[in-house]
């Protein structure tokens, strides 16, 4: 590859500065010489039960008056030992468990897992199954972003977008229910393809949803984007520079809002994303406002993808030819997809038996949450809540 394509996924300033930045400069470890319980500072505990930390997350803040000097996240309240469970289940039996990790966007978890196992078998799902998978995954992306938007606006104080967003999410969940019977933990895909054929009226439902959704997303933008209180609460808050993003391993809309134009759907296309034409929205400053704009744009791009997929839905089988009793060859595979929250990866080690030897889930929220410390240094307490919201954390994924 020549130089221009090599740096295609980096914004110009990142490509220039990346050479010079060394890792020790990127993370301030300046609080190391102070003890965490310095007498003149206040240690505030945002406990596990709190209306604004989406799930059971405990954040210990070290404050100087109103300014945050440092944070420490205590997680693990929702740890269910999913990876250990995987070692005692067969590959198909483990499929429902992956939905429960990022329970807000269950469909994409299932997609990643099924694709990873298919990679072990070195097969691919047939075309029709891929298209159906893409449609459902993009619907799931919109649903996840709607939850994010509603709860983020609620944290900042705008009470109404929550209800509007959940109304849209209702439509999507109705489609899921008609398709696979479940709204939240869908278990929509099977290894090798989809198990359920697209029901009669599936394409029509998706088209209706897309047509209804686009004006509504304009409505949400109108309500918030130019609202000076919203801008005042989100601009300049929680800035994360692109070098920090890459160093901290942050992916997803957070990375894109910092200016790095990188999306796994374009960089390492999986499923049939190569066939679709869509853009990757990026931001400029890497603050909360940019993340908001990026996610709104992502929803619109998802609508674009869904429309293209629905129009081009091929006919054919929906499940590939794989043996009934799944015994993949010995080997390891790492496969990752662009989940709504970031890069969701599955590292599966197979020893040739029907049960996986090790399943490792690389959760995007887990790695993104590390960046919280860097983002809230110097901010006020009221901003911590906004920043946690903007990272789009789902504790089910963080803790597994």
């Amino acid at each position: 590859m020549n130089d221009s394509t090599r740096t295609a996924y980096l914004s110009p300033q990142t490509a220039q500065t990346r050479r010079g930045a060394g890792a020790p400069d990127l993370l301030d470890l300046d609080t190391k010489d102070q003890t965490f319980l310095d007498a003149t500072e206040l240690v505030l505990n945002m406990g596990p039960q709190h209306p604004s930390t989406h799930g059971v997350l405990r954040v210990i803040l070290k404050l100087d008056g109103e300014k945050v000097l440092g944070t420490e996240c205590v997680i693990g309240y929702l740890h269910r030992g999913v990876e250990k469970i995987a070692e005692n289940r067969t590959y198909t039996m483990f499929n429902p468990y992956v939905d429960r990790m990022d329970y807000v966007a269950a469909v994409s978890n299932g997609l990643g897992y099924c694709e990873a196992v298919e990679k072990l078998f070195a097969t691919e799902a047939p075309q029709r199954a891929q298209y159906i998978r893409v449609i459902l995954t993009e619907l799931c992306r919109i649903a996840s972003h709607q939850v994010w938007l509603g709860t983020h606006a609620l944290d900042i104080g705008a009470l109404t977008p929550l209800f509007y967003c959940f109304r849209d999410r209702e439509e999507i969940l109705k489609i899921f229910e008609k398709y696979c019977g479940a709204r939240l933990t869908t278990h929509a895909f099977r290894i090798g393809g989809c198990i359920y054929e697209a029901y009669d009226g599936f394409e029509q439902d998706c088209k209706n949803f897309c047509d209804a959704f686009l004006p509504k997303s304009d409505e949400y933008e109108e309500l918030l984007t130019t609202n000076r209180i919203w801008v005042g609460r989100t601009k300049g808050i929680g800035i994360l520079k692109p070098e920090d993003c890459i160093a901290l391993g942050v992916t997803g809309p957070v990375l894109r809002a910092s200016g790095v134009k990188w999306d796994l759907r374009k960089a390492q296309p999986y499923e049939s994303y190569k066939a679709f034409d869509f853009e990757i929205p990026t931001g400029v400053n890497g603050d909360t406002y940019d993340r908001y704009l990026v996610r709104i744009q992502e929803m619109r791009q998802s609508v674009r993808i869904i429309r293209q997929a629905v129009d081009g839905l091929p006919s054919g089988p929906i499940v590939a030819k794989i043996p009934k009793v799944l015994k993949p060859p010995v080997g390891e595979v790492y496969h990752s997809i662009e989940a709504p929250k970031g890069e969701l990866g599955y590292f599966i080690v197979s020893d040739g038996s029907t049960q996986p030897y090790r399943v490792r889930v690389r959760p995007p929220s887990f790695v993104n949450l590390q960046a919280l410390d860097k983002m809230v240094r110097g901010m006020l307490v009221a901003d911590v809540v906004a920043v946690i919201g903007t990272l789009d954390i789902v504790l089910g994924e963080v803790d597994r």
Partner: protein
Amino acid sequence: MLHAIKAYLSSNVTPGEAGDYLWATIYILLVVIGISLAVLAMNWLERKILAHMQIRLGPMRVGPHGLLQPVADAVKLLTKEDIIPDGADKLVFWSAPVVVTMTAFTTFLVVPFGRTHAVTDMNIGVLFMLGISSLGVLGIIMAGWSSNSHYPLLGSLRSSAQMVSYEIAMGFAIVSAVLMTSLQTGTGTLSMIGIVEAQNAQQTWFIFKYFPLGFLAFAIFAIAMVAETNRAPFDLPEAESELVAGFHTEYSGFRWSLFFLAEYGAMLAVSSIAVTLWLGGWLRPFPNWLSGALWDLAFSLVPALSFFVLAGLSLLGVVRMPKIPQFRAQTAGLLMFGLLLGFIGLTLLVPAVRVRVQDIFWFVAKVAFFMYLYIWYRGTFPRYRFDQLMKVGWKVLLPLGLGVVIVTAVVGVRQELWGVLAGVSR
């Protein structure tokens, strides 16, 4: 006795002015009951209107369309366990809600619902209201301090800082309105009734006076009053401040309901100030442009008509109720409510009642508009962060208020200047 009653009914001054103790007491009672009823109605209205803005229904079960919800809430609060924190200073803890509620209610001594419909008319009416509502800040600090807990203290300090800052902007806006009262007569007045009479005499509501000066003063006051009463979008001390509920965290049951009463009472009080100073108080719309006996009659029928419209809506709701046995009680209740509204409308048609009561109706209608604005703001805006809030109060509203006062004063002295300025700007 009957003579005393008759004497009042034919007087044209407020009972306080007339030195009439009986009617003054009656008015005080009416005001207290009225505020309580208004707070109850506000509770229901807020929940319903906010819900409808959020595409949901709000309370529907407790009475027909949730009409008995405030009653249920009141009963619940009265029967709740009274918890006092362990290390709390009992006297201060007990008296804080009392202070806040008392100040909220006392401001209504001078609020004029009509020319004769006020408890009394002090010649320092506006100043009195402003001063008494400042005393409410003391109650908030007492509440936060006596709770013996870290977070209520910080919440109360924040609340009080916010309220004090915005009182300054409110003061400037009020001064510019008071300046306008002196335009025709040469002497201004702080009396609430006097201000409305001045608007009547100058034949324009002060909001439209020297447009946009009056409107600017009104806007400053409208924003400052929302911050003064700790309502959205300025409700960080209440909402999740320091991650708890602010200064009234440790209060439960009846004590909390006193704070609630005080908050809504304060909202009503500052809305009353806004209505009196800028929106012409009890004056009906267009008293001069649409004058004459026929227009007077038409406008005096509006109160009755509005009650008939409400009754009609209730009866429409009755017709739309599900026709299953479980809903019989609710349907009957809504029917009775509709009939009650219709009956009130009928009473308002009686000429004697009509003439005396129409002022009250217009005043209440304007205050109700402000209450709707409060609810609308709550449903629409995100919250300001505390430092942004203070920035708006000190760096935006205060200079603006100062500017408005100075320009109003200059223009007032040289009224012909306004014609020049207005001509230039157009």
